[in-house]
């Protein structure tokens, strides 16, 4: 598989995403500078974490108008797979590719710690290979990760099975204590209606090797690779 990892001024997990895709999973991956007009001939696009444009105005607000994002819109509209991580999730929400928005953590604190994620559905190219009994242990590092959407949108997300991951305790219970940022419904990640664009606040790319304290996050990338290889269709 061939991946494009976008790079904005202020991206900082771009190389971590490349490392997982290339060195851990053995696929081809390259950086694409935000001023490029095209993502190139790739199977999937990763929008990585960081602080694009210094989070000025709102997280992701400026990056979403970078030239490369025009082509990401085209790529996604044609069914291409796009995964946004942390700041990448914020950018995809700002771009309208994903529903909702990420606002300031309820605690007003920047939270940098391990959390557990319950996979809410396996009916997606991003979750299909995640074992049902695995509550992934992955790190978060964000100040603006509180997921918000209006009530109608939340109902639609539930009805269309678009919630992918929720903050849980180690046993999969969706408690308030397990919610690090005040996200509605403990939402950590969602996908679009077309089931080809997803985003999440936690960093699976930083939990894909035992050396980093957890390799659970790898299951997300493996899901994507398997789905692409099988040309799997999710509805």
């Amino acid at each position, binding site marked *: 598989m061939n991946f494009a990892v976008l790079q904005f001024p202020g991206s900082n997990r771009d190389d971590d995403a490349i490392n997982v895709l290339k060195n851990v999973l053995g696929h081809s991956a390259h950086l694409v500078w935000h001023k490029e007009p095209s993502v190139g001939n790739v199977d999937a696009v990763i929008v990585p974490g960081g602080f694009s444009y210094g989070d000025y105005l709102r997280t992701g607000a*400026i990056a979403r108008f970078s030239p490369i994002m025009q082509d990401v819109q085209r790529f996604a509209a044609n069914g291409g797979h796009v995964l946004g991580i942390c700041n990448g999730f914020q950018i995809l*929400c*700002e771009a309208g590719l994903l529903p909702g*928005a990420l606002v300031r953590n309820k605690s*007003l604190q920047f939270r940098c710690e391990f959390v557990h994620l319950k996979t809410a559905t396996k009916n997606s190219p991003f979750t299909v290979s995640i074992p049902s009994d695995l509550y992934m242990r992955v790190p978060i590092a964000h100040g603006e990760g509180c997921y*918000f959407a209006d009530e109608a949108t939340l109902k639609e997300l539930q009805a269309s099975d678009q919630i992918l991951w929720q903050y849980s305790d180690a046993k999969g219970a969706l408690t308030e204590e397990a919610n690090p940022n005040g996200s509605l419904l403990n939402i950590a990640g969602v996908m679009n209606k077309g089931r080809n664009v997803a985003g999440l606040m936690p960093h699976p790319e930083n939990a894909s090797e035992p050396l980093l304290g957890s390799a659970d996050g790898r299951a997300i990338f493996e899901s994507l690779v398997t789905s692409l290889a099988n040309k799997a269709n999710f509805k």
Partner: protein
Amino acid sequence: MKAKIIVTPKKAVLDPQGKTVQSALEHMGYKGVKAVHVGKYLEIELADGDKAVYQKQIDEACHKLLSNPVIEDYHFTIE
């Protein structure tokens, strides 16, 4: 000319900053504070021109970039 834009969080959106400022004001002894909402103020300096045209452009810019309609409301004046 100048456009003065105020962006505020929507009522339904959690506003922990507003809540924190509110409780600080209460601790300081200010009475009667019912709620605080923390937003943003932007000033755009404009070359002299047609106010009606600017009105349309600023509204568009507010909708596209300066605010996020999912979580924020805005209003502005041009002077």
